[in-house]
């Protein structure tokens, strides 16, 4: 009998609230997606080329898992609270009928376990389906192709998902049940559990409202104009942003109240009621609103940051596929292998060497010092390396780019430090400004643009600064005139046919078999992918998690409030309001409630995104604006769709509850 009751209650809970059940399933999907990251095709591939980095990332996962546990706890807590608040009378009745509190808690415990099991039965297959989809999509995106795909079922991920989910649900239920232990049955049986509304002090609410706006403006100003390094500004920005959001919502209730009061004499229908409902929600839930708004802000910025990181890394150009450190004859022997012969597009020697030429760099250093932020570069720059123009131009030709043209009085400045950040732009401005350099007593002007395409395959080898000089000059000033390595380019057809990764892996095999020392683009792309996956994947993951949690919290907070104020809707029905009118009022309330949270989050994230792209994390030069706009558009569309779905679900639930009131047929019972 007892377990039959548990089974029935759990089933009723699931049917009664899609939002509740949906939240539980989301929690499971969130856990599994994160925990099975190591099993994804991309990560398995990365483990073969960048095992240390992958190990570090996988070691980081437990930390992200704990962060997720913390946030998912709120999701589950609000979902469970919504359910138990709806059943207060039922619990009161059980107690009055003689059920011991311990038995009531045991019943709730059993219901929780049962709900967890059902959620897991649905959530785990959904998660598997989703992770397989992500795995396939990312594998396709990075050129692994379908060949490398393997169905992955991570048993440890399933076990940790189950543990985390059950733990979070039990903990949430425990926290919810503790107050029930102290609540008298009469209080549980009481129809109205709503808080009372009083007019906020005008001065106090105005002060909070204005303070909130001022603090937020300060945060926006600091973020856009003063955020250059991770220093005290970041702390002040975070503090003013967080306090500003809380303060704004604290004062918003009073602001709304004054607006309603002003408009009330001319209001018709349920306009005043709708306004007061929103105001009441804001007054009682201002902390939840602030937290949700901040979560949404974090969601939007995480996703934007993740996408920009992904784009930033993805735009790293492929300059060469292999740099082999062996003699020409040895390399030729391997590349003539039938299996890979047709895949090779070009092979050329790279002339790169240290130089001991007498260099006077006072003119360029002076030019650097004149540029804002150039002093540090002027102090640290040195000219130890030279590259031959012929090698560089052969690489440019293989990449399909224009060669650089140096006459006898010009040299080019080369740096493979990457195009992100100030370093590149400062150097570029210095050479564009007509700086010069003296070598062995002769003055050379600089080629007017900076060369940046990596001269060797592995991106671990970076040259802070080097000079590209004409070949005869290289022979004159280089310490080693023989080639540094041989670069090998694969044909586009091979890359397209097999997927670049597979093609490189095939040649890798041959080079390994011959025992040659080499660096491949694979190692570079591995590192590149590692950053893409670890940074953009994790930030996007957290972003989506925040988005779902914030929306669920807002939705459930509203629905809990409406359920607590059911009697108001009954009174309005008695006073002559129709259910359609009540539903339309509820819909307006939901829209306004969500808009209030979204408005602040969207404005703040716009400021945050501007700050991200102008301050700390500039997009690399040459990143396609179309790609950025398209991806941002897709992200925005997903965001708008998520919001629309949540708002729709909450509206539907609210209207269903209102319609059920009419079926109750009023509060009267026969006397």
């Amino acid at each position: 009998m007892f377990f039959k009751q548990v089974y029935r209650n759990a089933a009723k809970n699931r049917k009664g609230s899609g939002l509740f059940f949906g939240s539980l399933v989301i929690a499971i999907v969130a856990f599994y997606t994160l925990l099975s990251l190591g099993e994804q095709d991309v990560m398995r591939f990365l483990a073969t080329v960048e095992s240390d980095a992958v190990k570090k990332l996988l070691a980081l996962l437990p930390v992200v898992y704990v962060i997720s546990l913390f946030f998912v706890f709120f999701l589950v807590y609000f979902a469970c609270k919504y359910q138990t608040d709806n059943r207060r009378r039922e619990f009161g009745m059980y107690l009055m009928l003689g059920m011991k509190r311990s038995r009531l808690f045991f019943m709730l415990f059993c219901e929780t376990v049962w709900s967890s099991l059902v959620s897991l039965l649905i959530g785990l297959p959904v998660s598997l389906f989703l992770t397989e989809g992500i795995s396939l999509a990312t594998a396709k995106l990075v050129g692994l192709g379908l060949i490398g795909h393997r169905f992955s079922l991570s048993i440890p991920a399933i076990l940790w998902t189950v543990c985390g989910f059950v733990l979070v649900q039990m903990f949430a239920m425990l926290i919810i049940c503790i107050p029930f232990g102290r609540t008298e049955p009469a209080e549980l049986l009481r129809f109205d559990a709503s808080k009372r509304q009083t007019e906020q002090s005008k001065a106090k609410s105005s002060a909070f409202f204005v303070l909130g706006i001022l603090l937020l403006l300060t945060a926006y100003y600091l973020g856009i104009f003063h955020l250059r390094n991770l220093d005290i500004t970041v702390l002040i920005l975070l503090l003013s942003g967080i306090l500003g959001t809380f303060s704004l919502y604290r004062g918003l209730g009073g602001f709304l109240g004054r607006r309603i009061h002003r408009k009330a004499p001319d209001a018709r229908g349920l306009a005043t009621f709708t306004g007061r409902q929103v105001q009441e929600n804001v007054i009682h839930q201002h902390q939840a609103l602030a937290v949700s708004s901040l979560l949404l802000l974090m969601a939007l910025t995480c996703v934007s940051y993740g996408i920009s990181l992904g784009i930033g890394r993805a735009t790293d150009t492929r300059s060469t596929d292999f740099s082999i450190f062996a003699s020409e004859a040895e390399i030729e022997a391997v590349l003539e292998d039938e299996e890979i012969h047709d895949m090779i597009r070009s092979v050329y020697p790279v002339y790169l060497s240290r130089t001991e030429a007498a260099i006077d760099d006072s003119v360029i250093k002076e030019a650097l010092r004149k540029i804002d932020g150039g002093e540090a570069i002027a102090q640290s720059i040195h000219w130890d390396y030279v590259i031959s123009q012929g090698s560089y131009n052969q690489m440019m030709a293989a990449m399909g780019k224009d060669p650089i043209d140096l006459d006898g009085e010009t040299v080019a400045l080369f740096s493979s430090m990457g195009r992100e950040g100030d370093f590149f732009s400062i150097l570029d401005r210095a050479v564009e400004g007509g700086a010069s350099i003296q070598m062995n007593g002769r003055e050379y002007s600089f080629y007017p643009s900076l060369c940046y395409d990596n001269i060797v395959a592995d991106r671990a080898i970076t040259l802070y600064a080097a000079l590209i000089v004409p070949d005869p000059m290289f022979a004159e000033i280089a310490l080693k005139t023989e080639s540094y390595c041989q670069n090998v380019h694969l044909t586009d057809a091979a890359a397209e046919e097999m997927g670049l990764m597979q093609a490189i892996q095939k040649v890798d095999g041959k080079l390994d078999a011959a025992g040659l020392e080499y660096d491949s683009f694979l190692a570079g792309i591995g590192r590149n992918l590692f950053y893409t996956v670890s940074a953009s994947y994790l930030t996007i993951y957290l972003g989506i998690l925040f988005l779902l949690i914030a929306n669920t919290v807002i939705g459930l907070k509203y629905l809990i409030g409406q359920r607590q104020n059911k009697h108001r809707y009954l009174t309005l029905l008695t006073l002559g309001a129709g259910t359609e009118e009540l539903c339309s009022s509820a819909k307006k309330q939901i829209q306004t409630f969500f808009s209030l949270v979204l408005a602040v989050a969207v404005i703040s994230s716009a400021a945050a995104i501007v700050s991200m792209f102008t301050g700390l994390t500039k997009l690399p030069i040459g990143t396609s604006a179309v790609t950025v706009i398209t991806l941002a558009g897709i992200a925005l569309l997903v965001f708008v769709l998520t919001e629309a779905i949540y708002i729709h679900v909450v509206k539907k639930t609210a209207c269903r509850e209102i319609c059920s009131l009419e079926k109750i047929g009023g509060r009267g019972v026969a006397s």
Partner: protein
Amino acid sequence: MNTTDRILRVDSLTKTYGKGGNKTEALRGITFDVREGEFLGIMGASGSGKTTLLNCIATMIRPTSGKVILRGQDISEFRGSRLADYRGRIIGYLFQEFELLDNLTARENITLPLALHGKTAREAEGKMRKLASMLDIAGVLDQFPSQLSGGQKQRVAAARAFIANPDLVLADEPTGALDSKNSKILMDQLASVNRELGKTIMMVTHDANAASYCSRILFIQDGRVFHELRRHTEKESTAAFYERIVTVTAQLGGGGANVL
């Protein structure tokens, strides 16, 4: 009774809850009329069917059979907007637990039925001021219910019931949640609204004190009208009428054999 005076006719009204063996007949064919400007009391023991009767007239529940005719129209046929119009404009309702919306100010609560029927508070400003002064709530109009005493809340609820100028105000135990002092103030004021504005009030009550303000009382037992008392307004004081009510109530409590 002159039919032109009649505002409401309840004709052979029955209400049955449950089915088969679990059937409970709350109303068993009640018939009576209410005259315009009358202050009618409905009294009876718990379970006698008085609140069911009031809820049927208020359209909160549908009767099983019979008719409720208000100004010649059968309200059981009302649906949709006509029903909504009836609820807020033709009848006013005064609840035992006030049922004020606690997130609206007293003023907003009072003007709510008007707003629901497309009128603004500004348009009814004069009417509201008059009611507020009659019910002695002019000083608390901008306060929220949580800031009001029980008596003030019920007077605000009364103002809300009268603001749309309804044909009939239904009151369900309006003094049930008030102490004796506030009960007296409320009944004095309801009686004065009835007298001065000519409003028809139908009140369900247990309280003989409250009932003594009525001009006529119907006693209900087991879903039927069992007895009727009329107050001789010109010569009978509230105290004398009270005595008669108490006597009938005692006799009702003692069983049918003692009834007049």
